[in-house]
């Protein structure tokens, strides 16, 4: 019984945290939109104070029937209080509000569903302004749009709180200095800016999916938040473009394999339990993939989404690997990266066999990349066990995490056993 109770309590505090995380981004976006992006830190403070008050009040009296309405009402009071107390209202806010009855404006901090959505979208575009570096954009997006705490962001980046705080502070300074506005870019600008927005969402997702943090809940949260931001873009005609849909499809397909990947060590694709793949997410992915084929543009998201789609089909048919190889060939021509080059060579092995793939693999010369030597080892296995082992040893030396080293050591042991 005691155990059950503990479980329920943990569960409820977890959902409270989820509520705060969700509401943080909404409230900060709306407040920043109302008073201007230069007051974003005030918005963050007001919202944090509101959560603190909620935690204490709700602990004493229980959670109110409509917690979000409670949060919005308290936040409104705090904003009013803040601006009166600090005279910022008279000196800074007043001249900036162009016309009308100002008191009413302030009291009209509008937390309607519609205004929340508009404000969040505008915030997304504001953060993706070209004036700040992409690393800072991701940090800001995690904080302001996804409501992650500084601790969590530091953990995701394998960094510390001070570094992250400094980075966010500088990024916000930049927003102020460059007078970035909370508004959607103009017609001509929006397509170009959308590329940055999509890229940031892609990086957010990758940060979660390939993150070196061992915290699996955090990894999953990051991915789901990236997916949520992507879906937000589909609600507006100007941002709901084929490449947006392609990116969402890509994220759905990858996210569908989340449960199968999660265990103490990262489960390699070939060993994943297909039963654990999330069929709903795969179907969502197919839905968005179909939407993405409209129009002429073939973005790297299109190619990656189709690769991910094929990977969601377990059966290793010739057709599957042939398709994947062709998609990687094209992806490399748009967007070279060592990882894509290695994946392409793996697909080549599946289509043409080890000998052909080896010739091409030897040309890649990615001498600092442990995945490169793991691939070479895989290709040499059965052809030349001695070389396979040497490559594994190189991979072992280059591998960065203990989990990876452990996995490589197991392969070395296996070869040693066979040769013994």
């Amino acid at each position, binding site marked *: 019984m005691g155990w059950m109770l503990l479980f329920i309590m943990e569960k409820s505090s977890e959902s409270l945290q989820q509520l705060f995380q969700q509401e943080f981004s909404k409230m900060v976006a709306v407040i920043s939109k109302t008073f201007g992006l230069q007051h974003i830190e005030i918005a963050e403070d007001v919202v944090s104070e509101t959560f603190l008050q909620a935690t204490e009040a709700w602990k004493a009296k229980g959670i109110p029937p409509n917690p979000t309405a409670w949060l919005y009402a308290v936040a409104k009071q705090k904003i009013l209080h803040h601006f009166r107390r600090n005279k910022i209202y008279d000196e800074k806010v007043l001249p900036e509000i162009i016309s009308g009855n100002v008191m009413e404006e302030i009291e009209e901090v509008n937390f309607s569903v519609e205004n929340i959505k508009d404000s969040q979208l505008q915030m997304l575009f504001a953060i993706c302004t070209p004036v700040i570096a992409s690393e800072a954009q991701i940090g800001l997006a995690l904080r302001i749009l996804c409501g992650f705490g500084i601790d969590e962001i530091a953990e995701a980046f394998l960094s510390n709180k001070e570094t992250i705080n400094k980075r966010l502070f500088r990024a916000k300074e930049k927003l102020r200095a460059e007078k970035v506005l909370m508004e959607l870019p103009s017609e001509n600008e929006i397509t170009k800016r959308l590329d940055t927005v999509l890229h940031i969402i892609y990086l957010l997702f990758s940060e979660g999916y390939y993150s070196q943090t061992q915290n699996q809940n955090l990894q999953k949260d990051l991915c789901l938040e990236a997916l949520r931001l992507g879906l937000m873009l589909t609600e507006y005609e100007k941002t709901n473009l084929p490449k947006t849909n392609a990116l969402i499809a890509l994220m759905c397909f990858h996210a569908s394999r989340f449960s199968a990947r999660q265990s103490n060590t990262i489960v390699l694709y070939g060993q994943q339990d297909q039963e654990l793949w999330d069929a709903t997410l795969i179907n969502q992915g197919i839905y968005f993939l179909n939407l993405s084929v409209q129009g002429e543009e073939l973005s790297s998201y299109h190619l990656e989404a189709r690769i991910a789609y094929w990977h969601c089909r377990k059966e290793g048919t010739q057709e599957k690997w*042939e398709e994947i*190889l*062709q998609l*990687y*060939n*094209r992806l*490399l*021509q748009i967007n*070279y990266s*060592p990882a*894509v*080059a290695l994946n*392409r*060579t793996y697909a*080549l092995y599946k289509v043409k066999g080890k000998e052909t793939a080896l010739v*091409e693999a030897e*040309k*890649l*010369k990615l001498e600092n990349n442990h995945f490169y030597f793991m691939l070479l080892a895989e290709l040499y296995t059965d052809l030349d066990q001695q070389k396979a082992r040497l490559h594994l040893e190189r991979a072992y030396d280059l591998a960065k995490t203990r989990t990876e080293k452990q996995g490589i050591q197991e392969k070395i042991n296996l070869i040693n056993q066979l040769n013994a």
Partner: protein
Amino acid sequence: MKDFALLFRQADYNYSKISPEEMEEINKRWQNWIGGIAAQGKLAVGGSRLAADGTVLKAGGVVTDGPFVEIREILGGFILVKADNLEEATTLAHGCPALDGNGSVEIRPLFV
């Protein structure tokens, strides 16, 4: 690293009589070859295929139709690659599907 143009010449680029399956097979061969160069991070520009028909303008305003019978091998397309020297660029050209059709690849450094 310098840029080099790889120019593909073949006796015949007329694919109008072959089946879609054969065409797909030819495309795959080209894509696999270019993909192999791109995987080494040595593709500078994806380049283009040139259509088989066209015209030639000569001095004196003489315009003739393609195909260009005067030259034994028709220029069929090009890509730009990155390489340290001509020798390396030539190595990259190995395996080009134009060679299968008894054609040739011309490797020419680009002036910066």
